[in-house]
C-alpha cells in the first residue's frame, strides 16, 4: 500500500464492516457459521451475501488488519477506466501471495466509482473494476470460487470532497476478507 490518507484506517474499516453487516440477510447469517470466532475474532459468514471478519492485531502477519494495512486491501483506477495500473498489479500480487498463505479467507471484491458519472453507468463501471481485480488474483493462482464481486457504483465514497484528490481515492477496488473459504 503506497499512499494513505491520514484518516485512521482502522476506523474506516470498522465503519465499512458495520455497513456491510447491515446488508447481511439475518436468515442467511443464522444458517452460516455465526458464533464461531476464529483466531482473529472473525464473525459469521453468509452463504451468498456479505460477511465480516475481525481485524485482529496489525502486527500479526496473519491478521486481517495486517492484510488491510501492510499488504494493502485496495487498488485505484484512473478516470473512467478499469484496467489495472502497474501499482495496482503490484498490490494485487501481494494480496495473492498473502491469500495463498491464508487459504481460510474468502474474498468480497468491491468495485467503486467516483461521483463524476451517472448512477447506472457507475455500477457497471465499478463491476468492471471489481472484475479486473478479481481476474488478476485468479491469474496469480487464487481460486475464482473464493472471490465474489460487488459493484457499488458511486454509492460508497470514502473521500468526500468534489475534486480529484478525493475522486482518486474513491475510484477503487477493495478486497474485503471473510473467514470461510470452504477450502
Amino acid at each position, binding site marked *: 500500500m503506497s499512499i494513505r490518507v491520514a484518516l485512521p484506517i482502522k476506523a474506516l474499516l470498522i465503519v465499512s464492516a458495520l455497513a456491510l453487516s447491515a446488508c447481511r440477510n439475518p436468515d442467511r447469517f443464522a444458517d452460516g457459521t455465526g458464533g464461531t470466532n476464529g483466531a482473529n475474532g472473525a464473525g459469521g459468514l453468509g452463504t451468498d451475501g456479505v460477511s465480516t471478519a475481525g481485524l485482529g492485531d496489525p502486527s500479526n502477519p496473519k491478521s486481517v488488519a495486517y492484510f488491510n494495512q501492510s499488504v494493502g486491501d485496495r487498488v485505484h483506477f484512473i478516470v473512467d477506466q478499469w484496467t489495472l495500473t502497474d501499482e495496482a498489479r503490484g498490490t494485487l500480487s501481494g494480496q495473492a501471495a498473502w491469500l495463498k498463505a491464508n487459504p481460510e479467507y474468502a474474498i468480497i471484491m468491491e468495485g467503486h466509482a467516483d461521483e463524476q458519472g451517472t448512477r447506472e453507468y457507475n455500477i457497471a463501471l465499478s463491476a468492471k473494476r471489481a*472484475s479486473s481485480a478479481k481476474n488478476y488474483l485468479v491469474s496469480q493462482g487464487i481460486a475464482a470460487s473464493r472471490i465474489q464481486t460487488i459493484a457499488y457504483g458511486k454509492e460508497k465514497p470514502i473521500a468526500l470532497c468534489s475534486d480529484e484528490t478525493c475522486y482518486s481515492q474513491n475510484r477503487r477496488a477493495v478486497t474485503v476478507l471473510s473467514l470461510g473459504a470452504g477450502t
Partner: protein
Amino acid sequence: MLSPSFRPALYRHEDRMTRSHSLARILGPLALCLGLLNAFAAQAEEPHITFDTPVIEPMPYAVPDFVAEGGGAGDAAHNIARVVADDLTGTGLFREIPSGAYISGIASFDAPVAYADWQAINAQVLITGAVQASGNKLVVKFRLFDVASGAPLGDGLQFAGSAKSWRRMAHKVADAAYSRITGEGGYFDSRVVFVSESGPKDARQKRLAVMDYDGANVQYLTDSKAIVLAPRFSPTGDRILYTSYASGFPRVNLMNTANLSTQVLDEQPGSMTFAPRFAPDGHTVVFSLEKDGNSDIYTLNVDSGALIQLTDAPSIETAPSFSPDGSQIVFESDRSGAQQIYIMPAAGGEPTRLSSGKGKYGTPVWSPRGDYIAFTKIGDGRFYIGVIRPDGTDERLLTASFLDEGPTWAPNGRVIMFTRESEGAAGSATLYSVDISGRNLHQVTTPGAASDPAWSPLLP
C-alpha cells in the same frame, strides 16, 4: 381537439390550426409561452414575444375560494382552491390574481358570472367551484370561464371522493383546467416514487418513498437497512421496480404497491442486476445483468420468468427504456469508447447511435408521448439534462449544474423531474423540475434530501 404544444421554435411555423376565436385568444400568449403555433401567435396581443424571449408573461387567472355548500365544507372549499392555484401557478404558465384585487366574489356556484368584474382586473380565465361535505365524503364541482369573451370554457365537472382525498380532487380540477387551456394532458393528479436520503455522504441512508407530484403525502416504502436505487413505476402504477442491495449484491426487486410485498427478479448467483424499467405491456422488464464484470441488456417476463439477452458486447450496456409503443429500446453504451445513446429493436438487434454531440450521454428515457428522449449529458465537468428527438434531431439542453442526472417524464410528456446533487463534502441531493422548453426550473419539495425520482402515470 387541441394539438401537441411545447413545440420548439424551429418547428413553430409548420403547424396551422383553426380554432374558436375566443379560445385562440386565450391560448395566444400561453401558446407562445410553450413555444406553440403561429396560428395563435398572429392573434396574440404581443405578437413579438417568441419562444426565445427570455421573459414570458404568464396568463392571469382567478380562482376564488370554492363555495361551501352546506356545513362542514368550508376548510375544503378554501384548501382545494389553494391547491388548484398552486398547481397552475407552479407550471410557470399562469399567474394568479390575488383575491384582494377581486371586485366581486362567487356567492353561489350556479349564479351568473359577473364577467365585467373579472375583465376589470384583467383575469383571462376564471375557475369557480363548490364543495359539499357529507360524513366522510366530498363532492367537488367546478367550472372554467373565458373571461374576455364571457363564455364557459367547456362543461362543468364533478368529482366525488373521500374527505381524505381532497388534494387529489383539487389536482383533478387543475388537470382539467390546464388541459382545456393548453391542449396538453394534465399531470397534477400523479405521484412520484423516489429515494429519500439521510446521513453524511460516506454513510448515506437510502429509503424508497412515494409522494404526490407536489411533495404532499409522503409515505416510506422501505427501511434504510439496504441501499436502494432508481425506483420505476409500472405502466399502471400498481408495482415498483428498483435496485436493492438487501442480498448484499445489487438486484432488481419488484414491489407491489398495494401491500408493499417484494420479490427479487432473476436471482442468479454470481450476477448482479440493475437499471430496471417496465415495458409498456406491464409484463416485461428490461434491465442490465452483469456477469464476469460485463453488463448487457436483458428482458424478463415477470409472469413466465423467461429471460432474453438483447445485447452481447464486451462494453457497458445499461439504462434501457422502452418506446411508448413497445417497439424499440433506447439505452446507453460505451462501445464507441465513451457513454453514448443508442436505439435498438425491442427484440434486440443492431443498434443505431442517437447521440452525436461532444461529451458523454447516458440515462435515456423515452417520453410517454414518444416525441422526445430525455437524457443526462456530461461535458466539461458539468452535468446537463437534455432532450432529443428519436431521429437524433433537435437536441436541446434544459439544465446545467455540478451534477444533474436521471430525468423522468411527467405523464403528459411536457415536464421533466430529475436529481440535482450539490458539490463538496456536505453535498446532498434534491429533486428539480423543468419543462421541456427549459422554462420553470424549480426545486420540488421533499422532506429531506432526495434522489432518483420516477413519475407515475396519471392516477385513475
